[in-house]
């Protein structure tokens, strides 16, 4: 019944176009052209006839073989696993009368994934009963991927922004503390006349100047750490970087009897900025040693591997660990130290995170107090 109805429609279409042909000298702008230009394919499912149809554009998008015969049974094969349940639900709801409009990940005949915008609606028969469903899906892979990469960029920029804010804040705070110590010292110098007191105050002037220099050195370190460009990427061998890092801190390793195990067999090399990689290794390893557990000598495991086609690096220690529920958000901030000790400065992880994110990577941490900490970098 529906098919005859459709035929009638087609007839009308033809009549329409023929009558207006003179007004369109550049030819007829038909459904087929629209479908081709927009990359939109149509499909129809008729319940009574138990038949499914895919139009030529839909077949082209899905890359189905010439003799492919669509059926309701295999319709879900064209949706990626994560969207199958949702697609089935949408089809069911549509057959009950609710149209759908969604962005989903679909699969071509060869199982290759692509993003699509899919809309569907019920088909009504003569007595207003639902006799089938029909819809259109449009290949929006290119646009969607751009959108996703924009989203990632926004996140990176947001986090860089918040770190910049943190940075500016700390700079202001630290410079202010030195300045205030300076003015307090001068204040005191003015108000006393005892010679020994005066000497002591003068020595505190030296101390202040020293701390001021130290702060400025930290700032320099951060600025130079961020001033590298992408062009400086080189093919690096993980093991070479590790060995050169270890030799630069061999004293520290010996004194603390640190054991270091590494396995770079899965991914031996990566293209990266050499100074960044050296600083990442140095910061994570020295951190693991600085915050070692008092009851055992430090053991550090380092390995590289692939996850979701991206190179990852894991650095795992058996140190003090850190309460991430309390400190999670602050861990990568500047001048945040969680353990007492002269060696704690609090700029290492700040720099590390900055360098990794500059190259679109990410760093995550897992930790248990008294058990140890694991850093995972995705490059």
């Amino acid at each position, binding site marked *: 019944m529906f098919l005859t109805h459709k035929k009638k429609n087609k007839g009308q279409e033809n009549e329409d176009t023929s009558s207006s042909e003179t007004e369109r000298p550049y030819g007829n702008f038909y459904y087929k052209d629209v479908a081709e230009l927009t990359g939109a394919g149509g499909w129809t499912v008729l319940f009574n006839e138990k038949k499914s149809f895919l139009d030529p554009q839909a077949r082209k998008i899905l890359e189905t073989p010439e003799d492919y015969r669509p059926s309701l049974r295999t319709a879900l094969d064209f949706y990626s696993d994560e969207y199958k349940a949702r697609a089935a639900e949408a089809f069911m709801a549509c057959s009950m009368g609710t149209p759908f409009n969604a962005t989903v990940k679909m699969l071509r005949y060869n199982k290759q994934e692509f993003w699509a915008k899919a809309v569907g609606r019920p088909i009504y028969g003569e007595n207003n009963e639902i006799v089938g469903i029909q819809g259109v899906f449009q290949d929006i892979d290119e646009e969607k991927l751009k959108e996703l990469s924009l989203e990632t960029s926004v996140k990176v920029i947001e986090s860089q922004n918040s770190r910049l804010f943190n940075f500016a*804040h700390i700079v*202001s*705070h*630290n410079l*202010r*503390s030195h*300045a*205030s*110590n300076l*003015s*307090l*010292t001068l*204040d*005191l110098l003015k*108000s*006393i006349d005892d010679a020994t*007191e005066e000497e*002591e*105050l003068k020595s*505190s002037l030296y*101390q*202040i100047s020293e*701390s001021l220099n130290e702060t400025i050195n930290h700032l320099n370190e951060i600025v130079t750490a961020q001033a590298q460009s992408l062009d400086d990427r080189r093919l690096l061998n993980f093991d070479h970087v590790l060995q050169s890092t270890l030799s630069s801190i061999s004293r520290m390793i010996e004194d603390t009897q640190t054991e270091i195990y590494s396995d770079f067999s899965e991914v031996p090399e990566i293209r990266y900025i050499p100074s960044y990689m050296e600083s990442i290794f140095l910061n994570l390893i020295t951190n693991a040693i600085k915050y070692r557990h008092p009851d055992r000598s430090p053991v550090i495991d380092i390995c590289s591997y692939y996850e979701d086609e991206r190179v990852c690096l894991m650095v795992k220690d058996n140190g003090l660990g850190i309460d991430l529920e309390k400190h999670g958000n602050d861990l990568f901030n500047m*001048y*945040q*130290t*969680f*353990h*007492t000790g002269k060696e*704690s400065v*609090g700029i290492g992880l700040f720099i590390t995170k900055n360098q990794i994110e500059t190259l679109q990577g990410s760093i995550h941490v897992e930790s248990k107090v008294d058990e140890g900490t694991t850093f995972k970098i995705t490059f």
Partner: protein
Amino acid sequence: MTNLSPTPIKLACIIDDDDVYINLIKKVINIRKLSENLLIFKNGREALRYFTPIIQEEDDKVFPEIILLDLNMPVMDGWRFLEEFTKIKTGKDVKTTLYIVSSSINPLDLERAKEFSLVTDYLVKPVDLDEFEAIFVKSSA
């Protein structure tokens, strides 16, 4: 009786990680004879460890009349100290005046300080000599 020679208080306390600052404050207190004794803690955790037994009456040490609290400190910062300190249950009426003394001029910090009824005032470093003296005079009066 006059501002020049206030009656010194018995015990003051500084919670701050800046050694230079601590030395300077020690001098100020000695020179101006502002307090007879001085307690110094390098971070909130150390201070809390000392105060908790006193408040819970497990220890009869004297409680400081004035506490000068820094905000940015390692291990446990000033904010966490205030949170933890407020949480300690006590039947004892602890009489102390707590000042935040910080170099942070962040308006958010000033706002946050107002949320703690424990905090008498927020002083921005540098605090000059007369300002210091004024705090101690107020407390001994």
